């Protein structure tokens, strides 16, 4: 200590290492590094910004929601608010998805920290469920204004699960894009595709092809035998990158190369 430096009487002389705190922060960091987007070869956590759309495409039952929830949890761990919109599913079912994904995510780590992770995630998550026929941009805007004006919840990301992409959906998507820009959030969708449909001339699945211009990022999940492979379709470093990235079929989490636990 320099002679004229005043010592804070409250500050302990030795340095204290709070190992538990450190372990927790390491776990949090570890989970952050397992951001699905980083694993796909993207170098920052937010691949899309305000007003942008991303989409996860797959056939029914392959794991779209699981990936969406992983993206959501990742944002929540970075203290970003995520509004999860589920169409036709009750709130309880959505909560079960989070329980399941989070449990699987940390089962490879220290399970006793689960409660603390929940404390971090919960304030950053808001679930809204709608009947498909009632889900419209004006209703959503009204609900969002309720939340934002009362400072209850200001979302940075929206995850829309179960939206039925139809021919007439273009207007909805355009309106939602305008709203996303206005209120400053980005949107991830899940999109159901069918195996019997031939790819469109641009090579994309036809369900996606007709709206392709509205989306900045697209990821496709392709089941092959017992494995589910992840194929970046648009916006993530090109189609050739990360060719071997797959999902663990039992947990529907990303299988991280060189990590025996996943």
């Amino acid at each position, binding site marked *: 200590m320099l002679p004229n430096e005043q010592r804070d009487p409250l500050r302990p002389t030795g340095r204290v290492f709070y190992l538990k705190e450190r372990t927790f922060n390491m776990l949090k960091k570890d989970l952050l590094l397992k951001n699905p987007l980083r694993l796909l070869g993207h170098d920052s956590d937010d691949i899309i910004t305000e007003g942008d759309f991303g989409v996860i495409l797959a056939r029914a039952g392959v794991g779209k929601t699981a990936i969406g929830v992983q993206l959501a949890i990742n944002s929540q761990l970075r203290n970003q608010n995520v509004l999860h919109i589920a169409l036709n599913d*009750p*709130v309880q079912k959505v*909560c079960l998805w989070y329980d399941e994904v989070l449990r699987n995510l940390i089962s490879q780590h220290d399970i006793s920290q689960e409660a603390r992770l929940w404390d971090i995630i919960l304030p950053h998550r808001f*679930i*809204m469920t709608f009947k498909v026929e009632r889900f419209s941009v004006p209703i959503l805007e009204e*609900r969002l204004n*309720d939340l934002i004006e009362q400072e209850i919840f200001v979302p940075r990301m929206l995850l829309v699960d179960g939206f039925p992409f139809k021919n007439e959906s273009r207007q909805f998507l355009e309106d939602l894009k305008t709203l996303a820009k206005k209120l400053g959030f980005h949107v991830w969708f899940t999109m159901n595709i069918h195996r019997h449909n031939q790819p469109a001339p641009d090579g994309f699945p036809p369900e996606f092809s007709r709206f392709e211009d509205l989306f900045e990022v697209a990821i496709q999940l392709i089941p092959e035998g017992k494995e589910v492979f992840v194929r970046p379709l648009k916006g993530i470093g090109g189609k050739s990158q990360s060719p071997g990235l797959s999902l663990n079929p039992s947990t529907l989490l990303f299988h991280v190369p060189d990590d025996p636990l996943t």
Partner: protein
Amino acid sequence: MNIDIQSVRNIGISAHIDSGKTTLTERILFYTKRIHTIHDVKGKDGFGATMDSMELEKERGITIASAATSCQWNKHEINIIDTPGHVDFTMEVERALRVLDGAVLVLCAVGGVQSQSITVDQQMKRYQVPCIAFINKCDRVGANPERVIRQLSERLGHNAVAMQIPIGLEADYEGVVDLVSMRAVYFEGVNGEILRTEDIPEDLVVVASKKREALIDAASMYSDELTEAALEESVTEELLIDALRKATLTRELTPVFMGSAYKNKGVQPLLDGVTRLLPCPLDVKTEALDLENEEKPVELVADPKVPTMVALAFKLEDGQYGQLTYIRVYQGTLGKGDTILNVRTGKKVKVGRLVRMHANQMEEISAIPAGYIGALFGIDCASGDTFCSPNVNYTMTSMFVPEPVISLAIKALDQKSEANMSKALNRFAKEDPTFKTFVSEETHDTVISGMGELHLEVYIERMRREYNAHVTTGMPRVAYRETITRRADFNYTHKKQTGGAGQFGRLAGFIEPVADEDFVFDNRITGGSVPTQYIPACEKGFQKCMSKGPLLEFPITGVKVTINDGASHSVDSSEMAFQAAARGAFLEAYHKAAPVIQEPIMKVVVESPTEFQGAVMGTLNQRRGIIVGTQDEGPICVIEAQVPLSEMFGYSTVLRSATQGKAQFTMEFLTYRQAPKSIADELIKKAGEEKKNVA
């Protein structure tokens, strides 16, 4: 009394508040000729429903205590336990479910599967109670039984199948089409007591055939015979009912009936359903634990002829002739004059009067055979006690009892009230395991604790009305908890040499947080630095500290104490010295272990018209609530939130004024969570002030 056990049905009627279950029970009693007039729930005619025997229940239109009653239908004896619908009284519901073989889940045709239905359903799952569903209020505007069946599948995960389809709905609701017999059933007469069956109306023939096909399809999963018959198109009524019953008993299928109890429609077919589909006592496997054989499970046989009798007391009531104990006999026969053993107290008692109850009327009987529910007089016991023949020592598995989350100080207004109050409290605590009472050591106040504001409110009202005990109440107190968040070491020496025998004991070790346990003690002392005979005293000393935390004087939970060193003195060490050393050691470490205050968090579910969604979310947010989600269901939305209990006092008034009285909410304990620092500081300050005042 009919003692063909195959024809006995012990059923409960469970549902969300205001789904009309008491009205339904009333109609059942009317059609089974137990009562001869019908009264409304809210007592518009000055009588109140027969099952709501307590004055308070009649006034509030809610059923507080489950009244038991029995009736006959189609040569079957049906024992009905009417259960309360409000969350605050779930202990009553749980206790009722414990002794039941089957249940009718009543759902509102407009409201559908509401939050309380989910809680009740979970309870049924816990006790593996097979159930059938009844969609009530089909005459109301907005009734949609189809949607309710869908919700049963989607929200509660039931494999729900319609047994009927409605003929008309809302104001045009006329009757039902029975999909088993494929006949239309109409309810005529002043009280719907005359059943008229006819051919299915032409416009419903196609729908009915389709629905019947779906019913056969669902049932054939559980019966090969039915599958074969379906392929040959020769399905008989018996075959279909047999398959449905088989699947209902294993909870793999939930048959759904519909009607409007208030409008006297659809109740008789439901009774047929109860007798044809729900289990008799023989269908249900019941186990007791043999206390003399290391709690080995013993399967009970529902046979009245078995000499060893086993019965469970599930409800107590204080009547004009003394304590009335509702009891279910599981094995053997309980006869008048028999000597039985109360397993909990080890006391032998002689059975005096035996009765069968019909709400607040009773019928004298000489015996209660296995599988039956009855009541006995003059036996002193607590709810949940097992009675058995004196030659065995069996206990029925203990019931799940949640810890109380709220407490209230009460004071009698005069001396007469004081005597009555203690009588009342004694009775309530025996009746209801979730209701507890004690005298505060500091303030000398009598404190009552329970599962919610309404829970305690009802008991205070009952004290006034039934026992003439007038009391004033203090502010409700939330059951906070203290815990530690970090490991801390201790090395404490307790030394006292002030004349007389000295005291000496040294303990070293550490305390650390532990999840899912209240208190863990780990002795790692080697080499005898603390003699073995003093170790239990050390544990006792530490455990005593857990009952009252230094911050708020609330219990401490989640602490593991490890002792690994110490010292003793050949003359001055004693059990007392080591207990004191443990206390000192704990206090030394506690403040270093970053203690925090935990508060009870409630799961709050509000159902409100959609236009008030924003306002409701605002009220929850102002109460430090985390809104988990909102469910948009057309005109109604459901908002689920997690809110600290301390912020929920008086919420019903706030919600009423924010929604023009159109919203309702339910609340149940969810978990304990760390209170924010500002709140914790305030609580500590307040506790300090209170302590000073008392001193």
